């Protein structure tokens, strides 16, 4: 791992609805690295994602989160986003009256604090949508309203590529997607890795989406703790053996 860590999670304990889910998570992600977090269902993987983003329902009982050399444990969600953390949602909100295009533009303006140059913006949006093989008419459709599961996911990846965060947390991105969509989303992630040189934390329990990606580190989480870290080959091991051996403890 590089010396300058982008993200440093130190001994994190997180509660949700008075239930203790994370029991001392330690994780470091360097710049430009791609990490995969795997584990059986219900072990706290999504919880980690939400806690990193700062969802108020997830209470940090102990531990710290450091991002770009700053302690962001107490920071509000929108500040973390502006600092460069992105979380993709499994079931993103529908917002009638607000187009996909104007939503992303608003987000960009909040991030940069400046008005966005309309022409440049629209060109970039068009290009990115093409890359993801998204129908251009979706730009003027209300955000997520009437979008199929696959289209919602694409819209999330579109936002990822437009917002260019330093750290992208993708939660079970390939759950419920058809083969074509999986390919597209992978293409999106690849584009992100290339153009933004950002870091990725991909949370998943299935590995289809990782097939065409270069993975630097793989972590296995069981019962709210990361119990094993390895390189890309760990993914193959898990593919073959499953999580069985971790669960008996």
């Amino acid at each position, binding site marked *: 791992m590089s010396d300058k860590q982008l993200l440093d999670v130190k001994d994190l304990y997180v509660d949700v609805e008075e239930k203790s889910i994370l029991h001392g998570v330690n994780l470091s992600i360097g710049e430009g690295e791609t990490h995969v977090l795997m584990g059986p269902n219900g072990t706290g993987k999504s919880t980690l994602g939400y806690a990193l*983003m*700062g*969802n*108020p*329902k997830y209470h940090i009982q102990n531990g710290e989160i450091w991002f770009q050399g700053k302690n962001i444990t107490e920071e*509000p*969600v*929108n500040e973390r*986003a*502006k600092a460069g953390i*992105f*979380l993709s*949602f499994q079931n*993103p*909100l529908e*917002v*009638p*009256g*607000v187009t996909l295009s*104007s*939503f992303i*533009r*608003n*987000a960009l303006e*909040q*991030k940069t604090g400046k008005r966005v140059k*309309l022409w440049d913006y629209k060109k970039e949006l068009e290009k990115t949508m093409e890359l993801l093989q998204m129908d251009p008419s979706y730009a003027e459709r*209300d955000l997520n309203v009437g979008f199929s599961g696959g289209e919602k996911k694409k819209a999330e990846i579109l*936002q990822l590529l437009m*917002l260019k965060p330093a750290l992208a947390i993708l939660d079970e991105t390939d759950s419920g997607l058809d083969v074509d969509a999986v390919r597209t989303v992978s293409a999106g992630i690849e584009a992100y890795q290339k153009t933004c040189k950002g870091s990725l934390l991909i949370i998943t329990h299935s590995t289809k989406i990782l097939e065409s990606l270069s993975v630097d580190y793989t972590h296995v989480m069981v019962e709210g703790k990361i119990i094993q870290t390895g390189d890309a080959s760990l993914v193959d091991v898990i593919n073959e053996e499953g999580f069985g051996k971790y669960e008996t403890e």
Partner: protein
Amino acid sequence: MEQRDEIMINALPSKTWHWLRMNETALSWKPDLALCQTMIEGGKPTEILKETAQKIETGAGSGADPLFRESEEEGYGILADQTNLGETVRVIIGNREEGSEGSLYIQAEKHADITVVETFPAGEMPAKRLAYRTRVHAEAESRVRLVQVFMQGEGTELLNDIGCVCEQDAHFEILQMVIGRGDLYNGIRTDLKGDGSDVQIAIGYLGQKKQLLDMNLVVNHLGKKTNSFIQVDGTLKDVAQKIFRGTIDFKNGSSESKGAETENVLLLGDDVVNKTIPVILCAEEDVEGSHGATIGELDEDTLFYFASRGICAEVAEEIMTKGKMEVLYRKIQDAATETLVEQQLAEVMEYDRA
């Protein structure tokens, strides 16, 4: 004793506890109002058959009759028939003197199809009060669309009173954008007399500063297989006050009818007053009635999603408010009116439709 001209308007067909102060509204307007300015662009003028017109009951109710004495004699009438199918008639209403009033009667013949856009611009001071009554008679299988844009200035009061009777398979649609700064008293009553008739009402509003928005919607399902759909979406800021009364009444005999009403209010001001009373009255077994209301600030999940994209709560609220207006804006479908609305929205809130 001093003559206090208190006019009772916007009464609930079915009263409830008085302490709630929602049963009706008292207006202390002097009933001697001048005739307002009405500019009508397009449309076929018609004689108003007083008997037919007067039979159409309105949302504000007969309590408001004293306000319309002048225009009872000299109101305007528009005819929609086979010769002007699909026409859009634009009506611009302006206040005059301190208080003024006007009436419009729309007669839609069988199979007619007409859109009437009524715009209420800010007007010039000292014009303080304006009362306007629109009555619609939609004959069998006709289609009447009424679009109203309210842009009244701060410190003014506007009473908008609508009444409609739908005959068999007639279709009545109302779209209201309440985007002015003045107080609005809004009464809408629709009687779905003919079998198969239906009414769609969509209202969007923004209440700010000390604005008062007082609404009374009544839909009477009389015929069989009648349908009503009411959607009211708005935002209240600062110390704005709003009362929404929405009554869907399934009269005996209105079998196989459906009525649905939804109200969403986003509360953004610390001192707002929001009163809501969605009523369903039913005397018929084979009907489906429903209503839903959601009142309050943006919920946690919504706020979290916006925040995760770097958008703080305040900006999220702005975006949601604009979103509500946008949904209605798209339904206008008349370029001239769209421009007007865009300008007004830009004026009344920071708005940019790029």
